[in-house]
């Protein structure tokens, strides 16, 4: 069993959702996580608000937003336990953000602590 | 051993055994009775031995007296119980009342003490109370000694212990080892209490050197009991025992005849206890099984490097990395300062000065002492300013003397 990170990539972080939509998403997200928890495979996760994000480059250069012209941004992530990449991908397929046009979920295996980041 | 020394000595070694067995037998509802019986046993010895001579086997004598007193209590309790509730099935009572024997075999003593350790170090009991109860019940300290260790009076300690015992009853804490599944979590609290007990002795505010040493060795004894038991012999327990052995090895060197602290750099290494250092190494090896890395593992490894006086880059790089990891597990200002000192030795003073200034510990005299050290040789004017600031923040005479010496060395 390995740990995997599921990263929510929104195509356009500037799109404003309505309160009703947000509520539906929240419910769907909670149900999705509950499904993974029920299998004892949810480790944890966080939501990342779109506003204010900064990118630090070498020599202390700081820019707003993830990547300037590119609107694509990370909206959150969760970590799960899975027996294989395929199982982790199956969990990812249930992620509610995938209902949004152009959105995607990146699935990455977490490396064992080895001192190198 | 002279008679007047024998009873206090036996009190220290046997009281805690009798009380653990009696408590286990009676339950926390009768903890005061257990304490009374244990104390009465020694009172009886003090009355009889001077007149009739010391018995051939004093420990067996004490156990026999304690057993008799406990038996009397259980009989009285049964009689009382039968009178108050005379209508309950008498046959049932008859089967229980016949068993008044108290088992003071080495195995039951050991089991009871371990179980008491877990009961007292229950997460529901406040750490301060855990220490008080541990000293009283697990270590057999007198109220006066506990008061001395905490620099307070007997009334305060009595009140504190009273409240702690109430809590044991209220929470209905069982005198038993935890389930196998819960052992690591519960052991963590037990180890934390043992370490607090050790530090109480090692960094104690009391000047009584003998008492301080005893606190340390009691903590080590309790930890040793855990390591000796198959069920509780876990890597973290070995790591803590190793850590305490390494620290205790410097006990004679770090306090001088006047009870003043001797700084590490100025310690006479011939006073370091080689036997304890090698024990520390042994338990550090034992702690290396399993894949769990506790703060005790890291602190023990740091303590190991501190038993080596050579000033090599290898040593300081190892210590730096251990502090890097320790701070990630558990932050403390002193670990942050020690890490920065190790950084100066491994990566140079310039980097350490930048790091030190990020620490935000400006209320701490050790912080300014560190800055003073880092600036020494780079900018002695700044070094002096920092030492002077440290001097105004230091509270104890020892600390002030240490800083004063560093200022004198600048010129």
């Amino acid at each position, binding site marked *: 069993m390995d740990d995997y990170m599921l990263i929510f990539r929104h195509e356009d972080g500037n799109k404003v959702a309505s309160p009703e939509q947000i509520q539906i998403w929240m419910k769907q997200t909670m149900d999705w996580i509950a499904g993974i928890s029920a299998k004892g495979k949810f480790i944890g996760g966080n939501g990342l608000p779109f506003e204010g994000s900064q990118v630090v480059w070498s020599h202390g250069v700081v820019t707003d937003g993830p990547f300037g012209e590119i609107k*694509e941004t990370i909206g959150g992530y969760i970590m799960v336990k899975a027996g294989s990449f395929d199982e982790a991908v199956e969990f990812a397929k249930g992620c509610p953000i995938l209902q949004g046009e152009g959105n995607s979920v990146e*699935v*990455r295996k977490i490396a064992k602590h080895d001192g190198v980041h | 051993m002279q008679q007047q020394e024998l009873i206090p000595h036996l009190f220290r070694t046997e009281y805690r055994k009798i009380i653990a067995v009696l408590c286990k037998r009676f339950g926390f509802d009768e903890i005061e009775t257990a304490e009374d019986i244990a104390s009465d046993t020694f009172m009886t010895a003090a009355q009889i031995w001077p007149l009739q001579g010391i018995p051939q086997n004093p420990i067996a004598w004490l156990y026999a007296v304690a057993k008799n007193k406990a038996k009397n209590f259980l009989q009285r309790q049964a009689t009382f119980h039968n009178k108050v509730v005379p209508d309950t099935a008498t046959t049932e009572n008859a089967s229980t009342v016949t068993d008044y024997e108290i088992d003071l075999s080495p195995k039951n003593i050991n089991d009871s003490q371990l179980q008491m350790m877990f009961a007292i170090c229950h997460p529901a009991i406040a750490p301060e109370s855990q220490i008080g109860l541990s000293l009283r019940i697990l270590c057999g300290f007198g109220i006066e000694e506990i008061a001395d260790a905490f620099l307070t009076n007997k009334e305060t300690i009595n009140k504190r212990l009273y409240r702690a015992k109430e809590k044991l009853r209220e929470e209905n804490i069982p005198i038993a080892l935890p389930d196998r599944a819960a052992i690591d979590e519960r052991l963590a609290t037990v180890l934390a209490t043992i370490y607090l007990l050790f530090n109480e002795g090692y960094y104690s505010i009391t000047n009584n050197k003998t008492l301080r040493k005893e606190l340390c060795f009691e903590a080590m004894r309790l930890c040793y009991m855990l390591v000796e038991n198959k069920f509780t012999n876990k890597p973290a327990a070995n790591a803590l025992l190793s850590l305490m052995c390494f620290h205790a090895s410097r006990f004679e060197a770090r306090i001088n005849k006047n009870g003043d602290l001797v700084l590490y750099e100025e310690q006479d290494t011939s006073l370091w206890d080689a036997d304890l250092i090698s024990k520390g190494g042994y338990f550090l090896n034992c702690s290396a099984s399993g894949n769990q890395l506790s703060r005790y593992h890291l602190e023990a490894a740091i303590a190991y490097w501190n038993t080596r006086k050579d000033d090599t880059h290898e040593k300081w790089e190892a210590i730096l990395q251990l*502090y890097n990891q320790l701070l990630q597990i558990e932050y403390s200002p002193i670990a942050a300062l020690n890490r920065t000192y190790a950084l100066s030795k491994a990566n140079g003073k310039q980097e350490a000065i930048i790091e030190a200034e990020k620490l935000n510990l400006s209320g701490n005299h050790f912080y300014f002492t560190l800055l003073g050290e880092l600036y020494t040789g780079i900018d002695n004017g700044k070094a002096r300013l920092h030492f002077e600031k440290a001097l105004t923040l230091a509270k104890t005479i020892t600390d002030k003397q240490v800083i004063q010496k560093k200022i004198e060395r600048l010129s």
Partner: protein
Amino acid sequence: MKDYLLVYRTDYSFLPNRTPEEMQAMSKRWMDWFGSIAAQNKLTDRGNRLDFSGKVVRNDNTVTNGPYAEIKESIGGYSVIKAESYEAAVEIAKGCPVFKVGGNVEVREIAAM
């Protein structure tokens, strides 16, 4: 104090060419950096490094191999730190060893999910 997520991005194509000595020096820089943040009592979670392999699930249900490629870089790892503000979090991020290999750090405030 709020929690901020630091997302480390690098161009992975450089990585295989590193010598063991460079790897070790890099490892020390990361450990010293985490130690530095932890010594300020600002490290919530050292986080993790991510294996280079990855998959991307898209909203049309297709699954592609490899980590999500942004221009040249992709996510190599993350940590969570505590800071008073975005500015303070950015100041901490400026010390990150990822810049030594031409990477960058995205700083994101964390909201409870």
